């Protein structure tokens, strides 16, 4: 390598750029490539920031329906009362500081043929490349009777914000000796360890304030993420307080009656004091409506670039996408945002897309001082995203108290760093 790429690209004068991979991106003098990003969460925020980092000559517009972003990661600590709702709320000034144009509006339509998106506010934006990171929605009819009104009585708290506050409030007003029921969804869903961390966090609160109470996890599955570590943690700190009902043991919730507060399974009916219903999921509405999903309800994408296999120049990242072995997590979305940003920057600037590299880690807190984790580094193999052999895995089953305490510290550290990596 004799000259570095930056000097090389700079040396290039003024009229056309030709991509090394064969599809030229024609840039007219003075115009920049326009990228629109939908959703300012873990995936979209990252993609917007890193597009600007990778090439300041890309014009980035980020469209987010809400004024602020409430983080799901660490929202379970709001539910346990360990932190405030404000502490998981983030604004977009940092992104604006990187030159990202932030628009508060809801995208209602993607026209992939005309390369235009339209918003509820009546605006329309043209794009050369579109990044879609809208997260998840709840499968229609996934749980019978679980409609908008039911959500106000039986919160999911699976999108952070008012729902998180509502679940917290219900726990606070519950009597000692009450039953909290958490309905965990079938795979695949946002944050595989999430419901089980939530059970621990709820139990943490109850054990200090309402020690006669119980937590029952009603599961649509027969096994779950970090099961051994969670079960050991439940036994260590919340013995007898948390019960897990597998699908095989009639754990799967099929319907609710919000008026009477009833939770229905195949063979039984329950009336818990607090019902936290986490319904079956699919990609967010905008992805479904734009024809980005397939029969699975999620968005198939080229695993190297995250470009949709159904619409050209549209990139889907985060929970909404199908990403091989990667779980639907904040760290996955962050990692995917960087891969998609590099893919777009490479095309715009006419260089070769680098070999993708992806990572995920999910920390969970059993108590504020007792953390566990699962991690993996991923690579592309025969067009599929697979874990690197020998890498990653779970925290050891046998670990010292010091190790668990250090992991709890590093879990919080992860939260601060990833938030800074997205919004800072």
């Amino acid at each position: 390598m004799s000259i570095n790429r930056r000097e090389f690209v700079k040396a290039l004068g003024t009229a056309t750029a030709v991509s090394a991979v064969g599809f030229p991106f024609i840039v007219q003098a003075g115009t920049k490539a326009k990228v629109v990003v939908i959703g300012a969460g873990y995936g979209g925020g990252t993609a917007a920031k890193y597009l600007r980092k990778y090439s300041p000559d890309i014009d980035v517009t980020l469209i987010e329906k809400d004024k602020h972003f409430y983080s799901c990661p660490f929202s379970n600590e709001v539910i346990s009362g360990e932190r405030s709702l404000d502490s998981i709320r983030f604004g977009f000034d940092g992104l604006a500081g990187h030159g990202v144009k932030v628009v508060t509006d809801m995208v209602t339509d993607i026209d992939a043929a005309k390369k235009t998106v339209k918003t509820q506010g009546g605006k329309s934006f043209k794009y050369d490349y579109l990044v879609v990171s809208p997260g998840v929605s709840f499968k229609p009819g996934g749980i019978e009777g679980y409609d908008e009104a039911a959500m106000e009585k039986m919160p999911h708290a699976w999108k952070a914000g008012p729902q998180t506050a509502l679940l917290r409030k219900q726990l606070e007003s519950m009597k000692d000796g009450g039953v909290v029921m958490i309905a965990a969804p079938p795979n695949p869903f946002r944050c595989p360890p999430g419901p089980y961390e939530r059970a621990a966090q709820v139990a943490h609160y109850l054990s200090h304030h309402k020690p006669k109470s119980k937590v029952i996890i009603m599961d649509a599955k027969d096994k779950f993420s970090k099961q051994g570590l969670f079960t050991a943690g439940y036994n260590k700190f919340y013995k007898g307080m948390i019960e897990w009902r597998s699908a095989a043991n009639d754990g799967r919730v099929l319907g609710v009656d919000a008026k009477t507060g009833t939770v229905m399974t195949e063979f039984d009916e329950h009336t818990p004091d607090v019902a936290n219903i986490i319904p079956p999921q699919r990609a967010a509405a905008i992805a479904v409506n734009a024809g980005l999903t397939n029969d699975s309800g999620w968005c198939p994408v080229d695993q190297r670039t995250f470009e949709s296999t159904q619409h050209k120049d549209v990139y889907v990242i985060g929970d909404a996408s199908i990403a091989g072995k990667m779980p639907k997590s904040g760290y996955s979305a962050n990692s995917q945002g960087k891969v998609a940003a590099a893919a777009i920057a490479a095309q715009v600037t006419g260089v070769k897309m680098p070999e993708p590299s992806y990572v995920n880690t999910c920390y969970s807190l059993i108590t504020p001082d007792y953390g566990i984790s699962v991690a993996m580094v991923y690579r592309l193999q025969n067009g599929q995203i697979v874990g690197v052999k020998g890498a990653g895995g779970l925290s050891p089953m046998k670990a010292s108290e010091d190790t668990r305490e250090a992991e709890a510290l590093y879990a919080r550290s992860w939260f601060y760093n990833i938030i800074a990596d997205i919004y800072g």
Partner: protein
Amino acid sequence: MKTRNLSALLITAGLLAGAPAVAADLDAEMISNTCAGCHGTDGASVGQAPVIAGMNEMYLMQTMQNYKDGLRYGTIMERIARGYDKGQIMDMSKHYAGQPWVNAEQEVDSALAAKGKQLHMAKGCVGCHGANGISPIPTTPRLAGQYADYMVITMQQYQNPKVAIPPVAMPMRGMLAGMSEEDLKALAHFYASQK
């Protein structure tokens, strides 16, 4: 460190002009930015995971290799390091070595720090780590401005004979033996107070 095939690009491109400038070496960014979720953008950690921005390149390479080979214990780094090959480790080490060091923002207890300074001198840490925690030896990491919590945890690992630490850290096992947690905190606060 892959060849970027620039000459081929030049030829295919024919007339090349007006290309928007790419700011970054995308290959190095791709691999290095996987770390940022835990170590902060460009390695400037804002949590208690260590700052890795501006670390010595050799130290970074050696440390990643040690984690990979199980020669250095970590709560998570062994699991992460095993995901990268030698070339990738070289790329990311070069990348992070090229970033500016950013001192950890943290509260320092000045009384503790004063006690730590005495220990630093009396116990002979100064011999390798320099007067203020910045070593003249490139592969001895900077302690000045590193996270105190991280340093306490690391020193406890040095103390614990059951924990794997690399041969170069072995002298510290003896030196730190028998020191109380309070002493370790004092040392960490001294290093944290240095910039």
